[in-house]
């Protein structure tokens, strides 16, 4: 085989270029820590990474949404707890007021205390978190509860909607906000019961006071029921959040396997290629240094 000048220089250089290419690729892997820098590094893997990243983003969103729903539910829970103790206090006052031993003035005093409880209950019904009314169904922008004077009679009104709020957590997984207006609104609601008790005390009507106490019992039952539902929703949410957390770990694990480079392996490869490169340079330099022209001068 004849070895021409161009082959002698060229083949050494092209071998060096090959080593340079794999060096560059390894350096990129080590510096980014990623095995797939562009899709062509592993087309199937890149598509899977894209899918997993989408899922991860979705789970992140679901976690944020769940945290938001949880803070709403906590606020609902706190408001309902307060309502519950408020109703219990009103019931005590009602039971006192039903006693025959009391005078009309005593009852008037009780009535004014119940009136202040009514004000507090109204405020609880109109609880807002981040500007949203919690007990208004989907019409979170309108103040749901008010006391209107209809022909001299105080009438609690409800302006909200009957549609309960439904929140999408993950794909195909939605959760309903628990508390609707039920503990406050309508016949059997806290507001109606408190108004009835107050007016009965004011009117010094013991029979009506007894009825008021009964209405309070119903309202208390509803409140307890609502509290139970809120609690159940919170544990449902916690279970979902646990699910999200483990899903996230799983996806991140898969992503790591697909995308992350095995650093120790890559660094060992990099070292090996560097050594090969240096050796190649030495060989090429050595070959090019030897020439017949160094010897013919002496002929």
């Amino acid at each position, binding site marked *: *085989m*004849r*070895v*021409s*000048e*161009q*082959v002698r220089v*060229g*083949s050494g250089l*092209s071998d060096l270029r090959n080593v340079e290419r794999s060096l560059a690729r390894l350096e990129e892997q080590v510096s980014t820590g990623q095995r797939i*820098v*562009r*899709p*062509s*590094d*592993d*087309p*199937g893997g*890149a*598509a*899977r990474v*894209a*899918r997993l*990243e*989408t899922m991860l*983003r*979705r789970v*992140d*969103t*679901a976690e*944020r*949404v769940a945290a*938001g*729903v949880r803070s709403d539910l906590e606020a609902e829970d706190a408001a309902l707890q307060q309502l519950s103790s408020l109703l219990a206090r009103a019931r005590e006052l009602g039971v006192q007021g039903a006693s025959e031993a009391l005078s009309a003035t005593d009852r008037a005093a009780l009535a004014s205390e119940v009136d202040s409880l009514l004000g507090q209950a109204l405020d609880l019904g109109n609880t807002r978190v*981040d*500007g*949203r009314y919690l007990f*208004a*169904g*989907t*019409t*979170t*922008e309108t103040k749901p509860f008010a006391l209107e004077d209809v022909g001299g009679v105080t009438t609690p009104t409800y302006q*909200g*909607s009957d*549609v309960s*709020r*439904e*929140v*999408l957590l993950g*794909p*195909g997984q*939605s959760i309903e906000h628990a508390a609707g207006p039920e503990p406050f609104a309508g016949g059997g609601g806290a507001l109606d019961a408190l108004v009835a008790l107050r007016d009965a005390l004011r009117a010094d009507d013991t029979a009506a006071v007894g009825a008021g106490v009964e209405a309070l019992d119903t309202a208390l039952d509803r409140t307890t029921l609502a509290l139970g539902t809120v609690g159940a929703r919170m544990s449902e949410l916690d279970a979902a959040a646990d699910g999200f957390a483990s899903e996230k770990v799983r996806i991140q694990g898969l992503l790591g396997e697909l995308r992350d480079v095995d650093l120790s392996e890559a660094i060992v490869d990099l070292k090996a290629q560097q050594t090969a490169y240096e050796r190649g340079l030495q060989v090429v330099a050595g070959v090019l240094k030897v*020439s*017949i*022209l160094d010897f*013919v001068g002496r*002929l």
Partner: protein
Amino acid sequence: MTGLNPSIGLSALAAAQRGLEVVGHNMANAATPGYARQRVELAEARPESRQVGGQVGTGVRVLSVRRVVDRFAVERLRDATASAGYDAALASRLGELERLVADPSEAGLTASAGRFFAAAAELAARPDDSSTRLVFAAEADLLTERLRAVAGGLDGFVADVHAEVEAGVEEVRGLLERVAAVDAAIKEARVAGQQPNDLLDERDRLVSDLAERIGAQASEQTDGSLTVTAGGKLLLSSGRARPLGVEQAADGSSRIAVAGEPLSPGGRLGGLSAAQEEAGGLRADLDEFARGLMLAANGVHATGVPLGGPYTSLQSTVPVQDVNGSGSPLDDPLVAAGLPFPPGASEIVVNVTDFATGSITTTRVGFDPSRQGLGDLAAALDGVAGLRASAGADGILRLDADPGMGFDFAPRAGGSADAGGVLAGLGVGALFAGTGAADVRVADAVAADPSALAAGLSAGAGDGRNAARLAELQGQPLEALQGRSPQESVARMLGRVGAAARRARALSEGSELARGSLERAREEVSGVSVEEEVGAMIQYQRSFQAAARYLQVLHDLAGELMQMVG
């Protein structure tokens, strides 16, 4: 006195000089690409006819100076050069496409689509929060911006490649003209009895350039001229180049033609054409994704209720056209009325709300766009109590509620509200406007005021069920995406461009390797080896010295004879 004739010595001197000349030429061109080493062919000169005893020759003759070339090695190298050119051009251009389509950053298409759907899910959770509305509108805008940018990038890519093809064709024309010129010079030299070695080298180099650029093949004719073909079409014959042209087709791709006949090139130009084809395929995929997303999102958005509650007035945003030439756009069946998204048969749910009482009346309006036009739709909707509908000569549908009334198309009872996409097709209450990836944008009404986002299925500000439907589209198989979900569709595009780029890169590395080894095979025969040349040089030097010595001896002998005579 034939014995003292110096002609033998002189012929030896001349041959050695010629040999040294060739050695010098070879060494001078040791680094010239495509140079084939040359060799002096010597032969002994014939003896004179009548000699005593036996015949002795009359010295040495230089027969010719020839190139040392292996025709087959050259041809194989030429073919390898052509496919290396093709693969290298394709690989480098596909690498570019990959960066364009598969941007892995947060600004990339995958991330933008993911954020859009995530924003929809957050909107579903907090539809009454103006900041989530703003975020959703902004993410929708970013997604459309990205789609437009990638579509524009792909179109720009094809145009850019076309410019390179044009430049390449220009180059090929120049090369063909030079081949023709060199051909003529070779012919002239041969007629004069010369061996045009360096011209032949140059012609080989030109043909190799042609192979690299357009995948040309060449064969020498009996008269010594070259016939050059590419893609089975004649480019040059008997010293005349045929006219080569390039045009841009309707889809922006380049079409090369020789003398009016379409030519499918090899070499770099072939690689560029293949890259354009790949870009065209991606562009079609992108358009399909954009259109599928627009159609589905608009269908959901049209059948929702905005923040302010039911609509009191609404207009379609995509005008129908007078396609059948009746003079009015209203009688054209909607499937053939120039709509970018022609609807199918549908049953539209119309809810009319009486604001005073809050009572809602739901009517279902059937519509068959294969035979009914916009006029029929307006008439049918106008028949709903509390709603007035009209369609004008401008092809726009106008809807107005009676005073104190409002209307919407939400499926309050669940199910679908406008399965055929009639409202989406007309752009009634749309989220996106446009016809494809190149011009998709957020609808004007939503862009101007995010409270126009129809996040709910009822009048409550806290109702996010429609936004939830939008978020659910992400993983939902869509007919317009051939049964794939939007997220799957994006991932598939990524996989497609990645696979193509990877394949091209592997092929390019392989064909470069093949080219390199054939290059070495050619060099083994035709390359200049300095050691060999130095050896030849010493040989010629010695023979020159010997010839000079021989002449010296003849001279001395002749002098001695002269003295005797003197």
